[in-house]
């Protein structure tokens, strides 16, 4: 459908523009403003130029060290959960029943973790993983493994990864399920007539048709896992030591804990920039790879 050029359409967009600008631009200006100034309290600010940024991006300084350590942790975390959640989500979507009460039941259970407040998700796993009162922690210790997420960094990582998989794999599964539902029956009939194996059907039909939703799923999961704050904060508080301190946790510590506004602001901007750049690169690469999907003739 060809869109009509009409500048009056701005009137319809204006309210959204105003409210989002109010919520995004003004705070962002504040952040930029903080990031180039220093303060000794009492609302007295001094021009500091790019000083905070130099400190932040130099791993040798205290601030830079903290920033890069949490950045690597964040990248590792995002990579691990994406590697698990995307294939798992696809698998679960393929395993969904086609019809009957099982569909509604599965959908409701799948959506359940997505609607639990994030700190409650943390609380659930905080309890579930404890060896004294939690089923999982208790069971693992009964099996003879020494598991304690409060003291052991590896156990802490395992716990928050399992928690994230529990929390978000459903999102990938639901997106993929929506993608699978949009494939016309004729494709499966044709594949069956062509003698395709289960694997060939997945590779030749299901995966290509899911590509679009998989891009959305991977983007959402990258953004949200890279911004993660509440759940690990509730479960481990960033510990043991700093082993699960992600950038958001570091940032909140700096801004709301130490009121180091300049450092926090500089870190915020670099943090946002990383997210936007990664998403943009990812989005461009994925959509360009899928360019040949829309032919001139079009499909029904």
């Amino acid at each position, binding site marked *: 459908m060809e869109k009509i050029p009409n500048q009056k359409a701005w009137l319809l967009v204006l309210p959204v523009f105003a409210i989002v600008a109010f919520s995004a631009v003004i705070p962002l200006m504040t952040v930029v403003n903080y990031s180039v100034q220093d303060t000794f309290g009492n609302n007295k600010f001094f021009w500091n130029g790019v000083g905070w940024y130099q400190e932040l991006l130099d791993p040798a300084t205290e601030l830079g060290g903290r920033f890069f350590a949490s950045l690597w942790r964040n990248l590792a975390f995002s990579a691990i959960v994406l590697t698990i959640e995307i294939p798992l989500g696809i698998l679960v979507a393929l395993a969904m029943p086609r019809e009957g009460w099982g569909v509604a039941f599965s959908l409701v259970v799948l959506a359940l973790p997505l609607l639990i407040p994030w700190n409650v998700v943390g609380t659930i796993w905080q309890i579930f993983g404890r060896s004294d009162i939690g089923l999982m922690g208790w069971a693992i210790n009964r099996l003879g493994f020494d598991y304690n997420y409060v003291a052991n960094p590896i156990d802490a990582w395992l716990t928050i990864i399992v928690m994230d998989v529990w929390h978000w794999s459903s999102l990938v599964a639901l997106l993929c399920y929506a993608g699978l539902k949009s494939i016309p029956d004729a*494709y499966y009939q*044709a594949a*069956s*007539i062509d*003698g395709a194996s289960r694997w060939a059907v997945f590779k030749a039909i299901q995966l*290509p048709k899911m590509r679009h939703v998989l891009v959305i799923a991977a983007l959402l999961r990258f953004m949200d896992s890279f911004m993660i704050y509440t759940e690990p904060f509730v479960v481990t508080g960033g510990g043991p030591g700093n082993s699960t301190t992600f950038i958001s946790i570091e940032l909140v510590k700096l801004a709301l804990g130490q009121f180091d506004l300049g450092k926090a602001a500089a870190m915020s901007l670099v943090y946002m920039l990383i997210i936007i750049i990664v998403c943009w690169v990812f989005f461009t690469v994925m959509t360009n790879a899928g360019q*040949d*999907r829309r*032919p001139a*003739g079009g499909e029904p």
Partner: protein
Amino acid sequence: MARIDLVELAHSYTGAADDPASFALKPTSMTWRQGGAYALLGPSGCGKTTLLNIISGIVKPSRGKVLFDGRDVMALTTQQRNIAQVFQFPVIYDTMTVGENLAFPLRNRGMPRAEIETRVRQIAELLDLVPHLGRKASRLTADAKQKISLGRGLVRADVAAVLFDEPLTVIDPALKWELRSKLKVLHRDLDLTMIYVTHDQTEALTFADTVVVMHEGSVVQTGTPEELFLRPDHTFVGYFIGSPGMNVLPAEVQGRQARIAGHVLRLDRTYCGLPAGARVELGIRPEFVRLAKPAPGLLGAKVERIDDLGRSRFAHVRVGDLRIAAGVPRGPAIGQEAALVFEPARIHVYADQRRVEGAA
């Protein structure tokens, strides 16, 4: 490569197997000869796609059996039945090239690489797809995509039958004609049993040696295009095939005489013992009705409309409440009075829509 027998086949989508009114396909038995070119013709919703899907195994019928060369295939999957089917809308594998698409059915069956290559090339040549073989299939137009679908249906030489489900719906009219003739050539060259579902009589009559006409879930006539034209077994066949369709006129028939609109017509054959209470009609194709100058003893009519189809012309005339189409080489003017002359040998008598065979 097989003879296909349908034995007492019936299907209901609602699953009410004992309620005949719910049947999408009413009990049907018939045989498809090995190597035949068949068309399954009928309007939308007459059950032709259901019948096709039962043969290929996509739909499990509520009742009856399908035999391939006498062997019951009801327990076999689509894949095991070794059928090829082409659907109404193009189904192509987006990520593969045109060549890979064509090779897909062969590869899945583990054919040696060299054989696949020759076979794919052969089919691509027949369908003019050679220049596209290396291109991504998803980049082509709808026409070309449907050619790929056709090609995938034809690429296997050993199939029991190739089924076409209105395959030319999305194709440009000019190309449609070309593809249809290609299919005809392919049928001759490949010696495959082909069943072609369509609602377009031209498509059916040009493609097939044998046309099967379906109406409201049952097969009403099977025959060559000529038989369907000259001796329609059912008023629906007369009306559906031919353009304009057959004139179907309510009549009273007694022995060798028929009375329509108060006028008595002589028939070529004797019709005795027509079922009592049945709706009796005469059927005659417009091609066998002539328009003449009004004369005593002839059925008078008034010309309402002239359709010039280029090769032939038809006048639509009015007799009382009846409308009749008749062939006219030239003339008459609209509104003019005329008379109708019927070719007695071409008049058929129908009781409750089925043709009644007269005695000599």
